[in-house]
């Protein structure tokens, strides 16, 4: 195919463009509303913040998750509150992305990282999810599972496991410093809650529900500009047949926080 044919094809592809009903005033109103919400993000979600900070502290020492903790619901109950920590460097919420040095990652280096993370997960998964069975780490990749290429600045993988016989998985995504340009301000929208942590990072807890599907993503935006996310599901997202849905996500916030704040997941050149 010639360049000319490609250009013609692309122009032709948008030839049936539907009418654009664009109202700049409405867009401005939305932008201003989101800017206000972002400014108030620092003080938002006190109850969630308490839990998230406590969970992060727990995760730092890789303390096994509390077996009595409720499975991740999209609300936070008073029964799970712990001592309040409020000393986070609040400025970090507004200073994303931090200045980072640009690195080039070879595919070989990325595969090394992937292999190390796989080993690490195999060692620690049982501590974080004590009731997990049949734990398996699927290939790390990017645009597709197992797809790793030079200068790819993120890697993700599913860890599949069962809880009381129910299959599910957690998705772990590790983004290199500089990969994420939007930061918690841009990524974390209601009902997501963001919390600055004492180490200068920001932890976000982002629930998602649609019909029978429930997901919960905990992400740590780190001072070096990297981001690590862990997503739990109420079904098995890797299954090849129609999934069965549990009532709630099968990992709780503390467990997901343990993965997201684990500094073994570092994208180093």
């Amino acid at each position, binding site marked *: 195919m010639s360049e000319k044919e*490609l250009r013609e094809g692309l122009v032709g592809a948008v030839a049936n463009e*539907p009418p654009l009903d664009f109202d700049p005033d409405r867009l401005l109103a939305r932008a201003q509303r989101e800017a206000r919400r972002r400014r108030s993000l620092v003080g938002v979600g006190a109850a969630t913040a308490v839990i998230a900070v406590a969970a992060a502290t727990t995760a730092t020492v890789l303390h096994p998750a509390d077996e009595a903790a409720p499975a991740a619901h999209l609300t936070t109950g008073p029964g799970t509150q712990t001592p309040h920590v409020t000393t986070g460097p609040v400025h970090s919420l507004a200073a994303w992305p931090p200045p980072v040095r640009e690195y080039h990652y070879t595919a070989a280096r990325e595969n090394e990282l992937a292999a190390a993370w796989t080993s690490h997960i195999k060692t620690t998964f049982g501590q974080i999810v004590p009731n997990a069975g049949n734990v398996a780490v699927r290939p790390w990749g990017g645009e597709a599972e197992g797809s790793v290429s030079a*200068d790819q600045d*993120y890697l993700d993988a599913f860890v599949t496991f069962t809880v009381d016989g129910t299959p599910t998985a957690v998705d772990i995504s590790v983004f290199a410093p500089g990969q994420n340009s939007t930061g918690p301000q841009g990524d974390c929208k209601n009902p997501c809650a963001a919390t600055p942590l004492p180490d200068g990072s920001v932890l976000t807890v982002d629930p998602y529900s649609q019909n029978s599907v429930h997901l919960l993503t905990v992400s740590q935006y780190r001072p070096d500009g990297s981001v690590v996310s862990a997503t739990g599901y109420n079904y098995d997202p890797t299954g090849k047949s129609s999934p069965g849905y549990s009532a709630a996500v099968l990992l709780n916030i503390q467990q997901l926080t343990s993965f997201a704040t684990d500094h073994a997941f570092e994208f180093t050149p």
Partner: protein
Amino acid sequence: MRREDEDRFREFAVRQAAPLRRCAYLFCGDWHLAEDLMQTSLVKIYRAWPKVTRQDATGNYARTVLLRTWLDEKRRPWRRSEVGRADVPDVIDSGLGPALAAERSWRRDLVHQALLRVPPRQRAVLVLRFFDDLSIAETAEAMRCSEGTVKSQAARGLANLRVAMAQVEADEAHGRVAS
């Protein structure tokens, strides 16, 4: 934001809305998602507007934000599925005979269907280079990668596009709809 900055942003948004939506559609293959991506990108640009206006090429910056927004959207764990087949255009080029016009229409549709099968970053390079007519340097800036990466991604993208076109044609021949 100062009033004059808001006015400048409003003008920018009106000027860029349609081109950004077209570019987003070529990325994702869904006009509704394209509209969402365009709006979200403009909101992000609004937040950074004082910084943006100091840049010479605000249009290219908008492409960067759009691209990031789309890639971020794709990476969300509950990735939205993409529409693998665009609607056949209603508008036929009246300057051609019916047979030739239909052939050209099919050809264009084929290109876009095949494009949606090309990996996202390669697809983005092809759209930025051959639809938005960005230079290699501008594409590298928009994608935040080296010019060498743009060249290699474009070469791989074109190769994959050819393969994908053959697959789409084969699927159509067997009466299957691309997904």
